[in-house]
């Protein structure tokens, strides 16, 4: 079942189009990464979904809700740099936000204790937020985003400001969140997305360049690749391979030729045969697969 449908969403600031018409649907219970390099429009997209910003055009629809319903009770949102009332304690802040979301007093108390435990700041619950470290604020931010048990939780770069340990812990926290609700989080690090997510939305320069489940994308982009090293005349040999139609494309880099092929089995046989027939000075022959990372880099650099 889908949670939210986004149709032809656009956003301009002073006639510069930041988001150039994106479409996607988020399925319930999934963890979705909004992936893209800095400046791709991730924050703007999340802000529009959360209602903090109004789209220039297009629509954001929650499934099963009337158009006029206040969607805010169904979403949780954590901004990239969360700011709190520093004069409140962590517990006070969670209780305040929970009550604002319409939870009963007893429920708020119970849920606050539960979340403080879950995100691992129970020890600091009675300390003023002003004295919290960056990582603690990030956890508090996640807790406040999910306190009212939203159907969709949106987190803007929840791990990018953290040190490796904090990052690991927050990623594990996201794993736990997945069991409770639908999670959409933005990141510019593919690794983070691969680690916890089921689906990927790949945003680049305000456009959705790719989307799908992790498996789909891996399959799609796991193009067969063969690395070859010849003792000499690499250029000449590969050129002739190319002319004979043995390969799609190649790239010589650092004394190594990376060869893209359609079918890895056929290519292997053809190349080996050719090497035997022509007695070519083959030094290394290695079958590889391109990763999402390569695709990500390619899109980002283009």
């Amino acid at each position, binding site marked *: 079942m889908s949670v939210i449908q986004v149709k032809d969403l656009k956003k301009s600031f002073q006639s510069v189009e930041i988001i150039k018409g994106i479409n996607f649907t988020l399925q319930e219970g999934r963890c979705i990464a909004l992936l893209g390099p800095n400046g791709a429009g991730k924050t703007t997209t999340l802000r529009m979904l959360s209602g*903090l910003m109004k789209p220039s055009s297009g629509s954001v629809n929650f499934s099963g809700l009337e158009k006029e319903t206040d969607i*805010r009770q169904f979403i949780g*949102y954590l901004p990239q740099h969360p*700011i709190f009332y520093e004069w409140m304690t962590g517990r006070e802040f969670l209780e*305040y*936000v929970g009550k604002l979301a319409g939870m009963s007093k007893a429920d708020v108390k119970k849920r606050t204790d539960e979340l403080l435990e879950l995100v691992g700041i129970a020890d600091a619950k009675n300390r003023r937020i002003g004295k919290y470290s960056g990582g603690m604020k990030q956890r508090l931010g996640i807790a406040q985003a999910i306190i009212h048990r939203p159907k969709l939780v949106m987190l803007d770069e929840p791990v990018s400001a953290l040190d490796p340990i904090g990052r690991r812990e927050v990623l594990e926290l996201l794993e736990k969140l997945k069991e409770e609700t639908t999670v959409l989080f933005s990141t510019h690090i593919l690794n983070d997305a691969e680690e916890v997510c089921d689906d990927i939305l790949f945003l680049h320069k305000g456009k959705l360049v790719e989307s799908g489940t992790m498996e789909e994308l891996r399959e799609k982009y796991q193009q067969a690749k063969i690395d070859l090293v010849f003792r000499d005349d690499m250029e000449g040999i590969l050129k002739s391979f190319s002319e004979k139609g043995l390969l799609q494309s190649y790239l010589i880099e650092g004394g190594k030729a990376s060869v893209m092929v359609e079918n890895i089995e056929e290519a292997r046989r053809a190349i080996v045969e050719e090497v035997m027939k022509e007695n070519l000075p083959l030094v290394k022959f290695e079958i590889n697969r391109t990763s999402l990372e390569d695709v990500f880099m390619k899109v980002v650099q283009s």
Partner: protein
Amino acid sequence: MRQWFILFNKEMLEMARNFKWVWVPIAFILIGVMDPITTYYMPQILDSVGGLPEGTVIEMPTPPAPDILMMSIGQYNMFGVLIIVLITMGLIAGERKSGVAGIILVKPVSFSSYITAKWAGGLLLVWVSYFVGLLASWYYVGILFKWIPFGDFIQAFFTYGIWLSFVLTVTIFFNAFFRSPGVVGFASIATVIVLSLVSGSLSHLLEWSPAQIAGYTGEFLSTHSFPEAMLPTTLLAVGGIVFLLIGAILVFRKKELAA
């Protein structure tokens, strides 16, 4: 309504934690008693400053008691207004500028509750502070000069309080417009000054302007009766407060909370 009280209670707690509940009333008391005391001790002060030949007898007519209470109101018209603008200018703009509004307002918080709770919180602080301040002034006028009937004091208190409430509401209104507390403060002060200057110089044309309230309060204190324009002025000021509040809510709804 439950949500409104949650927001309002948060304002109260915040004003306690940042000591506004301590320093604003004290500031209003000190501003209030300044004139009664300096007026009373004026001969001694002049004497100690010196420069006058030995034996000079300083003859100064003692001003009537209502005039001295009115001097305190005159001080509130400057410093009181300034303090009100300064403590109100960041109430909403500050939260938006820092970004905390982005966390609070993605929760299902009604914009009108958010604004009116802040308005009511500020108003309570201002009325309490202004009350203890003017009460202190009235007390000092009483013991140093002559007692003004308490009923007169109460009437003057409520009348002039309308103007202070108006100033506060103007500041709340600009809070909905601008993200920077400094800009809010500047716009509010500028509005109050322009309104006062224009109302002062064109007083025959603008006799219903809320900026006349201070003058009318003084008139009441010395003559025991309000001018005829007092009623429409009051209505206009109260109407203006309601109008500005509604305007603030409408503007705020249209604003993008994050930019």
